[in-house]
């Protein structure tokens, strides 16, 4: 298996696509989803020969050359979640390709051809790569298989139905004849794939469901894998940048006399809102930047601070929100009972991927090359075109492996800044963020304030009102996702909470923090919602005098898949077995990203309020598990990501500036704090669910509820407050 990164020109947007075969440049077969209204000019530059004179996507999803080499084009980016492997498995399964020999290529920028079916744009996020492409890639694989079989049958003058395919060969079992896909590629390219090719019965899957080796990992253990930050185009120089420490501030004045005299410093670039130093290597550039005497104009945000932001969002949450979901008569249920109310709050968070933000750019009068790892390839191209004024097709994006995305690389601010710097530089320049710049100029997971009121009746929840107050990231990033005052991500896992509650209402109340840019962060909407809901469920169980497990199980009648997961997790975690003092187990049960997951954390809280994780157990029904070991790995890692935030994660603002800067004051969980994490997959024939972010959303409420069980202290804000747990401060 080989992996290439490729780049290419853009194509016009069209939502309607048709499965289509064509000839590849230099011979062989291409198969993919043809966009009927795609720009003919773009296709004409591609080298593809359309079979009927119409434009054809040159890259499609499958390419079979005359030597039989099968190349699968990956619409989604690989950032550790294993999609290069799982999406390849889906394509190769229906194609009956010899998996060990297929090659993988990153798709070029094109919303029309490689748009994520769940977004309509080319984006990797929301744990939906497998969910979104499940059907489309199966159809592509099956369509290619059908015409390869048809080509063989024509040659052999037999009924295609009497042929089969396996390991990149068409076989005619009655006569034992075989033809490789390479020998059939040219003939197949002239055929029309069936509109709805028959898909395999899951019981016939040969690849899907097997724990296959990841395709991208070999070069990640020997230093050969290349990420955006590793690009070294000939003649490249290196730049360090600084934006105003105060959000929205501008450059007032720069004295560069000391910096220009430093060894290795080549150029100082001063833009309206940022300063860059270009050098022979990054160290020279960074030293030069530190030697600059920069006067900033802080602008209007120099007063912004966390205390005020928290006060404001709490006050805002007292107003009515837009109704996202309503059933029964919630007002009547709340008036008829003894309402219990609780508020939960989560802080701003930075993404801090291990690969700091970076982008390498070469701007020329007639074109622009961008080397970057991005979750939104077409948007990367568009922003570079907008900054340079070049037409889209003159901008080439070389998308690379991503050293951690977590949502940070769904935004293109870093590409925009880098292109602006590169416009002032002769030749290619690699702009690298220091860790401090990366943490202080992020698009932060917003602060959210969740307010829930409920009533109990006969030991069960009767009324439930949940109001989510916070930033609408969708309104900025994908306006279709913010309609009538409701952010669909902001209420995710709140409107589809799993319990049998007869009367309920979920509201979203948009409240934007001043100055602080907000963005998607691994786990997205379900993060705060599952934390609030599952924390409150534990508090309600205690009010009702019930065991938290029994309380939940009794209300999961409409969600048997989650009930099964919760029962399994409880059994595996030895729920109910006696524990030492100050040790507790806590549950989180949820439907997130179309996966049904139950998580049980076991923690110990010492007298100083320090929390030690003893064990985490989770059971998940995520439908058909395409690559089961990847699912286990994603849950293990996702839980660590979420627990890190629960124990340490908080970005605070003072005087308009982020106060944290690096891993010394924005802490990460380390190996010596990581407990055993046991993941149990439940066999299922349902369509695949999402998994990359699921664990992240499960960790914090499970740990919080374990602390509640160990100490009786009901924490309602993250990260955990050790002063409260030590008894030195009121919750």
């Amino acid at each position: 298996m080989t992996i290439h990164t490729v780049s290419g020109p853009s194509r016009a947007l069209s939502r309607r696509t048709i499965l289509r075969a064509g000839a590849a440049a230099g011979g062989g077969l291409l198969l993919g989803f043809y966009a009927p209204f795609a720009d003919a000019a773009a296709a004409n530059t591609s080298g593809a020969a359309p079979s009927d004179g119409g434009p054809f996507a040159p890259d499609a999803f499958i390419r079979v050359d005359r030597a039989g080499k099968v190349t699968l084009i990956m619409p989604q980016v690989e950032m550790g979640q294993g999609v290069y492997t799982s999406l390849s498995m889906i394509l190769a399964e229906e194609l009956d390709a010899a998996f060990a020999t297929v090659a993988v290529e990153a798709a070029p920028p094109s919303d029309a051809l490689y748009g994520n079916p769940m977004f309509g744009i080319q984006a990797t996020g929301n744990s939906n790569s497998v969910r979104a492409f499940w059907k489309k890639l199966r159809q592509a694989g099956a369509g290619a298989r059908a015409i390869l079989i048809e080509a063989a049958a024509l040659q052999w003058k037999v009924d295609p139905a009497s042929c089969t395919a396996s390991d990149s060969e068409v076989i005619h079992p009655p006569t034992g004849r075989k033809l490789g896909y390479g020998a059939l590629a040219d003939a197949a390219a002239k055929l029309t794939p069936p509109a709805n090719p028959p898909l395999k019965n899951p019981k016939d899957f040969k690849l899907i469901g097997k724990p296959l080796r990841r395709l991208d990992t070999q070069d990640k253990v020997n230093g050969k894998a290349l990420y955006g930050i590793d690009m070294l185009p000939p003649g490249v120089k290196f730049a360090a940048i600084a934006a105003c420490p105060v959000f929205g501030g501008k450059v007032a004045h720069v004295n560069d006399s000391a910096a220009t005299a430093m060894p290795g410093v080549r150029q100082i670039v001063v833009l309206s809102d940022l300063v860059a130093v270009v050098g022979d290597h990054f160290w020279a550039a960074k030293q030069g930047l530190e030697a600059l005497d920069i006067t900033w104009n802080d602008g209007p945000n120099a007063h912004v601070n966390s205390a005020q932001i928290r006060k404001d969002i709490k006050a805002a949450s007292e107003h009515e929100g837009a109704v996202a979901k309503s059933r029964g008569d919630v007002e009547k249920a709340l008036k008829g009972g003894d309402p219990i109310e609780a508020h939960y709050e989560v802080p701003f968070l930075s993404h801090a991927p291990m690969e700091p933000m970076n982008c390498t750019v070469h701007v020329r009068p007639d074109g622009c090359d961008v080397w970057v790892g991005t979750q939104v390839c077409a948007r990367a191209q568009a922003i570079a075109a907008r900054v340079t004024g070049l037409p889209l097709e003159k901008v080439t994006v070389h998308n690379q492996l991503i050293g951690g995305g977590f949502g940070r690389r769904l935004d293109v601010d870093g590409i925009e800044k880098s292109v602006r710097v590169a416009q002032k530089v002769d030749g290619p320049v690699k702009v690298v963020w220091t860790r401090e710049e990366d943490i202080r100029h992020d698009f932060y997971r917003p602060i959210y304030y969740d307010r829930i009121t409920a009533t109990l009746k006969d030991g069960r929840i009767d009324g439930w009102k949940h109001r989510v107050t916070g930033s609408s990231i969708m309104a900025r990033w994908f306006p279709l996702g913010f309609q009538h005052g409701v952010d669909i991500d902001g209420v995710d896992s709140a409107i589809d909470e799993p319990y049998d509650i007869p009367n309920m209402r979920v509201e979203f109340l948009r409240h934007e923090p001043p100055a602080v840019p907000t963005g998607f962060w691994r786990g997205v909407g379900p993060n705060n919602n599952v934390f609030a809901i599952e924390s409150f469920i534990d508090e309600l169980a205690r009010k009702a005098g019930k065991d938290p497990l029994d309380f939940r199980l009794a209300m999961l009648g409409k969600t048997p898949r989650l009930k099964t997961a919760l029962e399994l997790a409880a059994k595996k975690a030895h729920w109910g077995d006696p524990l030492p003092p100050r040790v507790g187990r806590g549950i989180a049960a949820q439907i997130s990203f179309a996966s049904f997951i139950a998580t049980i954390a076991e923690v110990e809280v010492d007298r100083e309020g320090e929390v030690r994780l003893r064990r985490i157990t989770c059971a998940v029904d995520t439908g058909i598990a395409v690559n089961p070991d990847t699912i286990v790995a994603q849950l293990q890692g996702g839980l660590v990501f979420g627990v890190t935030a629960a124990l340490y994660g908080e970005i605070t603002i003072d005087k308009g500036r982020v106060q944290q800067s690096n891993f010394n004051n924005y802490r990460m969980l380390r190996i010596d704090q990581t407990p055993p994490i046991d993941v149990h997959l439940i066999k299922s024939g349902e369509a695949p669910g999402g998994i990359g972010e699921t664990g992240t959303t499960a960790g914090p409420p499970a740990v919080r509820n374990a602390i509640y069980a160990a100490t009786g202290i009901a924490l309602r804000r993250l990260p955990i407050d050790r002063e409260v747990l030590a008894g030195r401060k009121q919750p």
Partner: protein
Amino acid sequence: MIKLQINGQVREVDVVEDTPLLWVLRDVLGLTGTKFGCGIAQCGACTVHVDGKAVRSCLLAVGAIGNRAVTTIEAVGQTPAGARVQKAWLDLEVVQCGYCQSGQIMSAAALLAATPHPDDSDIDAAMAGNICRCGTYVRIRAAIKKAAGERQA
């Protein structure tokens, strides 16, 4: 010019003496397998071996290295411990995004070279300086034990 012994070769670089080894490796010599993560020795992504010991290259001035032998991720597979660690990493599918794994592997290889059969506390002590944002710690621990020839926990 500063002379360095890197991966068994003598390399001469024209940089000032206080330049950290990390940037010489990456930007001057093109050995990009060693990664930049924090610049303050808090994350371990830049870990290399100097005379077989794990060192954070982001704070190691090239002028201070002298004749000592530098080994990077590109060559650690030529050492017995490094090769065992790389194999165990693949066998147990430790890697996710992979960005921190060069540093993790260098730390693990140095640990095994010095302590062929580490227990959990040895692993904690040797590996706690390496952050993995993807959260692969459970498998890192298992892979070190596998590389050490022990049964998995």
